[in-house]
C-alpha cells in the first residue's frame, strides 16, 4: 500500500513526473507506527493506534502580540472555526502563495460558472483571494509555517467605491506536531494537518476541492472527542491563575426520551482549587516535572466534578456525552468547532488540536 507512487504520477503541475518507486528502507511510516509499538507487521493501523499523548506540558501563556501580526491574531481569536484534518500537501511552496491566490480565485469563479458553487442569496461577481503566512505561531523547526486564506468579495449590486468585505477565512496550521512523524515525511510533502474555516459552506467546499486537486491531499471532518474535551477543561482551568477563566461550563446530553441537556457551570475559583487538589494528590510522589499534566489528573478532575454532581442528583453524567466545554479562554464543541477567545492561550489550544488532527488522519 503505497499511495505515494500514485500521487507522484498524478500531480500535473510541474510536468516532471516524480518517481516514487520507494526503496525498501524509505517507507514513509504511518503516523501510528511512528509512535506506537514497532510492529513490522503493522499493516493494520488500528492495532498500533495510539491514543492522544497521556501527558503534556502545562500551557504557558504566551504573549503573541509581538510575534504575530496583530491583524492576523485578531482574526484568529474573534470567530468560531469549523475544524478539519488535512493529509500532507504535496509540493506546497510557501513562496508561491501569490500564484496560489490567483489560481484559487480563478477556480472559484470557474466553479460558480459551472453551477457547482451557487448560493442563491449571495451574488458575487468577483473574488479576491489572499493567502498569507502567519509567522510566529510555530516554535519548533519541524512545523511548517501557518497559512492564512482569506476570500474577499463584493455583492453584485454594490457601488463601485464600496470596499470588498471578507466573506470567508480559513487557515492551515501545524503547531508542535510530532517531530518523528514530520521528519519521516518525504521532502516534497508539507504537513499542515489542521484546517479551520469560517464562512459559507459552499466556499469551504470550493477551497477544499482546490487544495485536493492541487496538492493531492484529503480533507476530513475533525470531531473533538471526549478525551480532548476533557483535556481542554483541564488545560483551561489550569490557566486560571494567569488569565481569569470566569467560569468552567460543560454541556452534557443524556439519552433520555426526550433527550436531556445538562449545563454544569462551575465557579472559577472552586474549579481551580479542585484542579490543584487533584494535581497535588496525583503528583505527590513525582515533583521534578511539575509542569507536565497527566491524563490521570485530567480524568480525576472530571471524575471529581461528576461525583459532586452525583452526590446531589444521583444522576451519573457518564451515562451521557460531553458535548461542549467553554471558559472565557475559548470554547470547544464535539462537532469540531473551536473558539479561541484569548490570544495568550492560542498556542496551547492549537497544539492539542494539531495532535488530534494528526491522529485522525488516515495515513
Amino acid at each position: 500500500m503505497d499511495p505515494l507512487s500514485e500521487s507522484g504520477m498524478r500531480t500535473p503541475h510541474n510536468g516532471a513526473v516524480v518517481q516514487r518507486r520507494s526503496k525498501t528502507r524509505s517507507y514513509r511510516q504511518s503516523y501510528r507506527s511512528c509512535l506506537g509499538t514497532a510492529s513490522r507487521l503493522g499493516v493494520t493501523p488500528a492495532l498500533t493506534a495510539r491514543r492522544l499523548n497521556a501527558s503534556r506540558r502545562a500551557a504557558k501563556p504566551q504573549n503573541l502580540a509581538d510575534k504575530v501580526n496583530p491583524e492576523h491574531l485578531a482574526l484568529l481569536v474573534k470567530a468560531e472555526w469549523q475544524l478539519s484534518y488535512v493529509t500532507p500537501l504535496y509540493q506546497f511552496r510557501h513562496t508561491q502563495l501569490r500564484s496560489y491566490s490567483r489560481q484559487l480565485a480563478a477556480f472559484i469563479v470557474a466553479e460558480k460558472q459551472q453551477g457547482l458553487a451557487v448560493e442563491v442569496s449571495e451574488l458575487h461577481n468577483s473574488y479576491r483571494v489572499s493567502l498569507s503566512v502567519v509567522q510566529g505561531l510555530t516554535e519548533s523547526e519541524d512545523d511548517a509555517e501557518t497559512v492564512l486564506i482569506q476570500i474577499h468579495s463584493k455583492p453584485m449590486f454594490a457601488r463601485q467605491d464600496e470596499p470588498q468585505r471578507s466573506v470567508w477565512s480559513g487557515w492551515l496550521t501545524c503547531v508542535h506536531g510530532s517531530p518523528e512523524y514530520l521528519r519521516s515525511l518525504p521532502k516534497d510533502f508539507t504537513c499542515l494537518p489542521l484546517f479551520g474555516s469560517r464562512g459559507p459552506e459552499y466556499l469551504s467546499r470550493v477551497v477544499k476541492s482546490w487544495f485536493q486537486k492541487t496538492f493531492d491531499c484529503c480533507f476530513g471532518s475533525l470531531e473533538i472527542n471526549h478525551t480532548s474535551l476533557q483535556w481542554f477543561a483541564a488545560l483551561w482551568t489550569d490557566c486560571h491563575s494567569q488569565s481569569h477563566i470566569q467560569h468552567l461550563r460543560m454541556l452534557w446530553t443524556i439519552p433520555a426520551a426526550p433527550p436531556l441537556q445538562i449545563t454544569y457551570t462551575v465557579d472559577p475559583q472552586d474549579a481551580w482549587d479542585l484542579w490543584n487538589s487533584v494535581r497535588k494528590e496525583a503528583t505527590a510522589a513525582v515533583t521534578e516535572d511539575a509542569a507536565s499534566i497527566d491524563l490521570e489528573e485530567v480524568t480525576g478532575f472530571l471524575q471529581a466534578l461528576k461525583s459532586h454532581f452525583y452526590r446531589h442528583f444521583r444522576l451519573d453524567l457518564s451515562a451521557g456525552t460531553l458535548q461542549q466545554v467553554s471558559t472565557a479562554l475559548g470554547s470547544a464543541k464535539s462537532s469540531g468547532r473551536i473558539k479561541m477567545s484569548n490570544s495568550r492561550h492560542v498556542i496551547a489550544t492549537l497544539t492539542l488540536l494539531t495532535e488530534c488532527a494528526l491522529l485522525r488522519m488516515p495515513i
Partner: protein
Amino acid sequence: MYDTSKLLLQRLVRRIPTQMLKATLDKWGRLTVEQRQAMDFTQSKWALTQKLLSVCEENKLTLTHLAELEMIHAMENPNQGMWYTFQLLEPENDAQSVELTQFKQQFKCHLSELLRQMSVKIKKHTDEAVWIRIALGSSFSKPNHLKPTYVVHYLQTPYVFVRNLTSKLKPLLSQALTLATRHQGVKEANLSGRNLTSIRDLLMRQYQQVFPTKYHSPPEEEDQPVLNQHIEKEQGGVAAHRRHMAHQAFGDGMLPQLQSAVYMLDTKFRDPNNRTMTEREETFKCVVKFSSINLLESLRSCASSGIASAPVTPLLSSIPLKGRNYFVVTDNTPGPSSQGHQTQN
C-alpha cells in the same frame, strides 16, 4: 398615535396564523357583516394587513380596540413567551369571597392611583382565569401598547402568572394585586416556563399522579414480546420497581411541559478520595441547568431507565412536588431552600 396603531395591527396580522385569523376577527366583533364577508383569507398577509387597515379607518377603530384584538389572541394562545409565577401570601379573612366584579374594580382603582398613564383591560376566560393586560406609559409618554404585560390570576387560588413584566411595573403590580385579592403580600414562586397551561397544571396538580402504595398495582399488559426469558427473570423485577418509583416521583401519563430547571448549588465538596477539598472551608459553587423539550418526561425516563438512581433524589422530585423549577441549594437546609432570587426581567 396612528403610526402605533398601524404597527400594532401589522404585528398582529403577522403573528396570528391565517387559519385562526378569521375566528379571532369574528370573536373581536368589530367588523360589520359586509366587511367580514369581503375579507379574503387566501390573500397574502401583506394584502390582509392593508385591507384591515382600511376597515379600521372606516370603522374609526382606535388603539384600544386593537389592544382588545391582541388580548383575544393572547388568551387563545397562552403558550407563548415566558411566564413567571408569583404566589400571594397571608390571605385575610375575606380573601376567599373575592369575586370578579369586586376584583376588577379594586384592581383598576388601586393601579390607577399609582400610575397615571396606563391602559388596563380585564377579561374573564372560559376556564375561570382572569386575564389582565397592562400597557404602561410614563409621565411623559402614552401607554406603550407594543410591549404589554399580561397577568393571569385564578380567583380563590394564590397563584398569579405574569408575562413580560418590567421592573418598573413590578412593585406597583404587587401592591395592586395584594390589595385587590385581600392578601398581605406576594412573593416569587420560582416557577417559570413557556407553557402557561403546563405550569398551571403543575401547580394545581392537574395531572395524573401516582400515590405511594404499599402494594404495587398489578403489572400492566406487556405490549412488547419479552426478548429474553433469562434477562426478564433477573431484571424484570428491578426494572418494574424503578419504573414505579419514577412514576411515583413524577406522575403518570402526559406530564406538564416544563422547559428547564435551574439549581444554584452552594454546598461543601465532600469526597472521601479527596481530602484537600473535603477539608476546605469554602463551599463549592456551581450552577446546574437541566433543559429539554419536556423536562419532566426526560427526568422520568432517566429514573425508569436507571440513569438516575432510584429512589429519585428530593432535589429532582421537588420540581413536581413543590411546583418550582428554580432552586438554591445550601448545606443548611435539608432540601432545596425556598429563598427567593432576583427576577429575570
